[in-house]
């Protein structure tokens, strides 16, 4: 069994050129659980929530002003909308945050000495996926992972769930920021004025929490559970970024981009979800639902199956899923215990079946292997992963990226990897010797065929390309 390669790649992010050999894989992984740093140095320079929100507010205000201007001067109808140049500029200010955070995410992954927790950060960010398709989400995507996911991956699942559900990126992405209690004081007042359609409920976040984040699809919850949960969630919104009249209700001291609970938007009354009655205690009502969902047996099974798949293959062994699920239930969703059980289990240490590395995994492991900088200083990291078919924080759906071999193992994708490996190899040239690197990077997964193919390469660069395109290195 290639336990060293599996430890470094299935659990970690690939061996770094300066990593010592992994003598005791299980101890190496368990130690990382304790050594995890939720705020790695590579992320220190990133803009905070305020700056990101300000970039969006400026963009939105400018767009609105132009629209008003255009409406006031119908003669000028063809100049409707924002000056394209200005729009591009403001958009690029938002995008700057996304591009910077993407690059920092890669730097953190390449530099980390705790690659197992770092992989878990990526796993959970994909489990609680937001997608940078919406202009409101683009700037916040990185902040979401760093502020809402990272601090909680070593705690209780319930805290991670609540943290994810409360972050502005999630509230904006799944429309919670625009969801108002149909009988909330605010909606009632608007309705009584009879001037326009009363604001109402948006079930998006409630449904996705049940279907994707906790219980899992078709696990017995009903439409009335979704509606009741959506009502419980009302009041939870984002200050300064949302649209519509609700913005007037924001507390005076709320900063744009801050998650707030507004009583006047909240649906009054008790809600019954999965047969349990939740009294109306304001913000605490939804949190109580979330805490119960977080320890539900269906959630335990759902999380266990996803985690097991990520560390084995497309069809996770039932024994592993059951063991993880039992651990989850026993500890009330203690994530550290879950990771320890995973590491101690025999199933993830079987070579087959194996996962095919995602473009992210593959690129990170390649960069970790090389001492010399493999990418140009001006390389746009976000654009590179878009080209490789896995744009950072943009899976296009709240379900996140699918975690299956077939998701990433495509013929064009394979050729793209070979081309990127080739380009990087060209840049590295003879500054790395694949014959020396292969036993270090592939460790006990280095086959005689790959060793020989690398030794027979017609140039140092070709040797590097062959190493990164080798069957073992493409998998984890």
């Amino acid at each position: 069994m290639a336990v060293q390669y599996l430890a470094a790649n299935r659990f970690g992010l690939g061996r770094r050129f300066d990593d010592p050999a992994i003598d005791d894989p299980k101890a190496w992984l368990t130690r990382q659980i304790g050594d995890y740093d939720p705020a790695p140095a590579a992320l220190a320079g990133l803009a905070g929530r305020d700056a990101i929100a300000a970039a969006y507010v400026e963009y939105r205000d400018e767009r609105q002003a132009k629209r008003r201007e255009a409406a006031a001067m119908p003669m000028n109808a063809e100049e409707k909308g924002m000056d394209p140049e200005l729009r591009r500029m403001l958009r690029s200010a938002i995008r700057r945050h996304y591009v910077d955070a993407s690059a920092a995410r890669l730097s953190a992954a390449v530099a980390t000495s705790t690659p197992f927790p770092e992989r878990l950060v990526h796993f959970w960010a994909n489990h609680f996926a937001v997608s940078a398709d919406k202009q409101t989400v683009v700037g916040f995507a990185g902040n979401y992972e760093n502020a809402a996911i990272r601090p909680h991956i070593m705690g209780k699942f319930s805290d991670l769930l609540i943290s994810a559900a409360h972050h502005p990126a999630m509230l904006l992405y799944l429309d919670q920021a625009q969801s108002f209690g149909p009988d909330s004081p605010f909606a009632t007042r608007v309705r009584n004025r009879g001037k326009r359609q009363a604001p109402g409920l948006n079930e998006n976040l409630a449904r996705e929490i049940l279907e994707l984040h906790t219980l899992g699809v078709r696990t017995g919850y009903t439409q009335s559970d979704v509606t009741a949960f959506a009502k419980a969630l009302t009041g939870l919104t984002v200050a300064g970024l949302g649209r519509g009249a609700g913005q007037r209700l924001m507390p005076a001291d709320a900063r744009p981009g801050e998650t707030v609970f507004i009583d006047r938007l909240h649906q009054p009354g008790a809600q019954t979800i999965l047969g349990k009655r939740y009294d109306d205690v304001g913000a605490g009502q939804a949190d109580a639902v979330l805490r119960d969902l977080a320890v539900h047996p269906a959630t335990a099974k759902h999380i266990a199956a996803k985690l097991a798949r990520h560390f084995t293959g497309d069809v996770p062994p039932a024994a592993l899923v059951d063991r993880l699920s039992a651990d989850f239930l026993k500890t009330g969703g203690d994530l550290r215990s879950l990771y320890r059980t995973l590491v101690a289990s025999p199933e993830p240490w079987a070579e087959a079946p194996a996962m095919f590395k995602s473009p992210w995994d593959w690129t990170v492991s390649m960069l970790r292997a090389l001492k010399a900088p493999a990418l140009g200083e001006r390389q746009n990291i976000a654009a590179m992963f878009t080209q490789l078919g896995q744009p950072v924080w943009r899976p296009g759906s709240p379900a996140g990226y699918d975690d299956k071999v077939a998701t990433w193992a495509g013929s064009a994708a394979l050729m793209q990897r070979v081309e990127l490996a080739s380009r990087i190899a060209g840049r590295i040239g003879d500054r790395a010797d694949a014959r020396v690197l292969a036993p270090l990077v592939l460790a006990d997964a280095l086959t005689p065929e790959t060793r020989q193919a690398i030794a027979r390469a017609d140039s140092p660069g070709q040797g590097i390309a062959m190493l990164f395109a080798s069957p073992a290195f493409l998998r984890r």
Partner: protein
Amino acid sequence: MILSRRSIILSGITVAAAGALPRFAYAAAGTPKRLVFIIQRGAADGLGVVAPTGDPAFAAARRALADESAGGAKLDGMFTLHPALAATAGLYTGKQAHFAHAVATGYRDRSHFDGQNMLEGGGSRPYGRDDGWVGRLLTLLPAAERDAIAIAPAVPLALRGTVQVGTYAPSRLPQADADLIARLTALYQDDPLLHPLWESAVKTQELASDIGGNNGRNGADLGKLAASLMLPADGARVMMVETGGWDTHSGQRGRLAAQLRGLDQLVGALQTGLGPAWNDTLVIVATEFGRTVEVNGTGGTDHGTASTAMLLGGGLHEGGKVSADWPGLGAAARYEGRDLKPTRSLESVIAAAVAHHYALDPKRVMTTLYPDA
């Protein structure tokens, strides 16, 4: 620092004083000189490129590959040029091509990595130097002739040194060459997931890859690009062009022909693109080592020792000539019983050509380019 004639006049030095300066001080006079180093990575088969058809042992040793040179230009009583090198044959007729045969660097083992390191670094052992012979040559050239560039994503070892060197890697030049693709095909052969994926990827991949691809037109594109970078008044004066795909362990007949067709078009496009400047241009084509005299079981040749180097350009010392202290191909004449025996050092061929081209002191060129020799 090297003084050009202009700077001597400006600094008020008398003609008599200038006369005391070494001859190379005048190198900057006239048209700027240009130098192109084309490296053939993967060990090009010198016996296939410039075939010693007059050697009595040739036909028997080369068996099925003996007629690779059929239809090629007769260079003299001994040698025939590969027929794919049609434009190069024209240069030879016009005394603008010179082939140095049975040449090798000081390297005597058969690793591509080590061999290329020696060819580029110019040291006396692999990984003995972290700068290259072209990089060191730049220190001998006047400022106006020192602008160097590599058509590569990073500066190759040959160009590294104290003088800043540029690189240019157009994204339209595909990065995965046909040779790498072929090697990966072999590596994926028994992989149930990768084999079918790769097969379909290769099928859809337009093999517009290395210089041999696209019926040689890739070579022409590369030559055009090289000329466009070197022609302008403020353009590059020294250039390195990388070519791969020379490691013909199997199916050499078609592969070598395709490679040489690409190289021929590269040189042709370079000559056309440079126009009159071609007359002050020296092109050096060299590989890390040669290939076995005998053909192997898969219609190819394996790693050998001596090969052939090409010198091309408008102002060659001995254009229209094949220079060789020919060792012969008989079993007893071979190096270790299998390879063409090196009878002349590639380093001395390069140093002599460079010294003549730039009118520099040959001894000084040799000690600068190959200080460990």
